[in-house]
């Protein structure tokens, strides 16, 4: 268990800047997920934390101590790799015990530790096998065992579940979460899968093009995205962004949705953006999550607005129906419970839950919040 501070980390390869001033801090027992599309620099950042790569600028602190110049083994960190990276020539037991052997631990003591970890991960019966004789899920467990046996200060996971099939992935996700709860360990976890990020993290750092887009709790990230990238990257289906313009309506500022005719186009300014200084004529985007669109009368929200939607396509997923909707000429994705009474082709009134609706400046892509974002880097 340890705290980890990533302080103004930058990394360049020649002219290419792959990480720009990344500043994140997490405390004891935090589960930090670095998430972003491929090429966003998240794995590079993880390698820098591990000591497998060096930063061009900035510092990494573990428990307050700068570790920039320490070798990976001196940082007291363990890492689980995407390909598991099990040593093919060694048995499971030798794989798990390799780090202890390198540290010069006597054989008897090693055996005890290996047995304890194998027990924890339920792989005791596999100890004499070689990696080639294991299934994907078993390899995954061995890779975790190799990290666990060292009892490191921090665990690093580099997309550990991406090679598993969908069912196993969900199982292992739960298992890693349980393990985290049980060990209370500090974890940094890299993934491109926003669902993994949402389900596992206590803190999420969303990255794009080497720039930290937002750092916060999963609820922060989901409900109060900092910009349009975070809004559309996190959540599936993605948040709807409806282009709009600030107008004056009845003496007060309001939104007029582009591509929608008549009264339906006029909406109030969302409460989240209440006191922000908005200029009439300003181009904005209204962010609505698909699940904020509901059947009339079913929402418990304090503020709903009813709008006429045309239903283009229904996509039943089992528990939910995804709806490809049109509001005037604007395409909107909706998400209703499976028992919702909707039919393709019909035009009908649906409610939008307006309490969480987010306003974005269309030019900068930044969200416009009345209340400032919760302090980001000062966790």
């Amino acid at each position: 268990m340890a705290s980890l501070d990533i302080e103004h980390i930058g990394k360049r390869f020649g002219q290419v800047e792959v990480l720009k001033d990344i500043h994140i801090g997490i405390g004891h027992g935090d589960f930090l997920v670095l998430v972003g599309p491929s090429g966003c620099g998240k794995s590079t950042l993880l390698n820098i934390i591990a000591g497998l790569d060096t930063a061009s600028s900035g510092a990494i602190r573990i428990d307050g101590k700068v570790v920039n110049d320490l070798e990976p083994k001196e940082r007291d960190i363990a890492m689980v790799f995407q390909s598991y990276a099990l040593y093919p020539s060694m048995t499971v037991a030798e794989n798990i015990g390799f780090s202890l052997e390198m540290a010069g631990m006597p054989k008897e003591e090693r055996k005890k530790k290996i047995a304890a970890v194998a027990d924890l991960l339920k792989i005791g019966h596999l100890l004499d096998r070689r990696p080639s004789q294991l299934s994907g899920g078993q390899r995954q467990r061995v890779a975790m065992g190799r990290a666990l046996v060292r009892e490191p200060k921090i665990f690093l996971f580099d997309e550990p579940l991406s090679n598993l099939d969908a069912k196993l992935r969900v199982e292992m996700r739960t298992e890693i979460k349980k393990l985290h709860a049980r060990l209370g360990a500090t974890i940094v976890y890299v993934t491109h899968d926003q669902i993994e990020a949402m389900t596992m993290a206590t803190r999420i750092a969303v990255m794009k093009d080497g720039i930290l887009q937002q750092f916060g709790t999963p609820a922060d990230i989901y409900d109060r995205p900092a910009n349009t990238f975070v809004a559309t990257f996190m959540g599936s289906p993605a948040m709807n962004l409806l282009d709009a313009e600030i107008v004056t309506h009845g003496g007060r500022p309001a939104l007029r949705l582009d591509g929608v005719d008549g009264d339906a186009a006029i909406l109030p300014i969302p409460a989240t953006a209440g006191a922000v200084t908005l200029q009439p004529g300003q181009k904005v985007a209204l962010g609505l999550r698909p699940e904020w669109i509901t059947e009339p009368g079913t929402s418990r929200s304090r503020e709903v607005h009813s709008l006429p939607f045309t239903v283009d396509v229904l996509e039943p997923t089992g528990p939910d129906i995804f709806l490809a909707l049109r509001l005037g000429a604007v395409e909107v994705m909706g998400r209703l419970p499976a028992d919702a009474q909707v039919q393709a082709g019909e035009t009908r009134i649906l409610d939008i839950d307006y309490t969480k609706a987010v306003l974005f400046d269309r030019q900068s892509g930044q969200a416009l919040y009345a209340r400032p974002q919760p302090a980001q880097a000062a966790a």
Partner: protein
Amino acid sequence: MSVAAETVILRRSGSGVNLARFAVYALLIVAAAVFLAPLVSMVFTSLKSMDEIRAGNLLSPPGAVTLEAWATAWNSACISVSCAGLKGYFLNSIRMVVPAVLLSVGLGALNGYVLTKWRFRGDNLLFGAMMFGCFIPFQIVLIPMAFTLGKIGLAGTTAGLVLVHVVYGVCFTTLFFRNFYVAVPDELVKAARMDGAGFWQIFTRVLLPISWPIIVVSVIWQFTGIWNDFLFGASFAGGESQPITVALNNLVNTSTGVKLYNVDMAAAMITAAPTILIYLFLGRFFLRGLMAGAVKG
């Protein structure tokens, strides 16, 4: 379609398959016979007496098998002025080939490891330069090599020959190991670094144990090449340290009186034996090693 009709069709296609298979086997047998004929002729001739050689034809089996020619070739055949057979030269070759193979394969493995897992600025350029060595004909370097060996005091010695073969062999073994290790995931090395292993521990504990297919390929390649080499042996080895290939040439070309074909053949067989044996023992690993990179296990 009725069952009867189906059976007829099956049988007809079956006989077609048999005919094709017969043709394939016939062709293979003929090819094998053509390739084996010289070897068979050598073995037969080496087991005959000179009288029988003069009387019979080249491919007829020996009437009375005798190992006399083999013993002569090994113990007492005259090579230039000394008549002590091949045995001394055989040992020379062993003394040359064992260290040369070990060193060139070991260095190649190390080069491949560094070039793929400890990348540095200009590594590809260096690799390209080393590959250049694969394409340099032996003859071009004879004079500079002789000059160098003389300067460092290794002219005419087995150690000098070992050095020449190691220098020449490293290009090939580096190529083999580099291409093998490039397919080994880098994460394996990263994981070992995280586990606290150093440069040599990663090499000996993690990479070498999975390298046996390419080790076998390199050993066979180097052993065959070095053992069979004639040019370097003839150019750089003094009379006492000559390898067996040079001695065989001298034995066959030593012309005093009658030409002893059976002794010549036995000597050639003795000279060729180690490479044949190593291929027999390691051959299946050789094929497997060549395939290893191509098919993901």
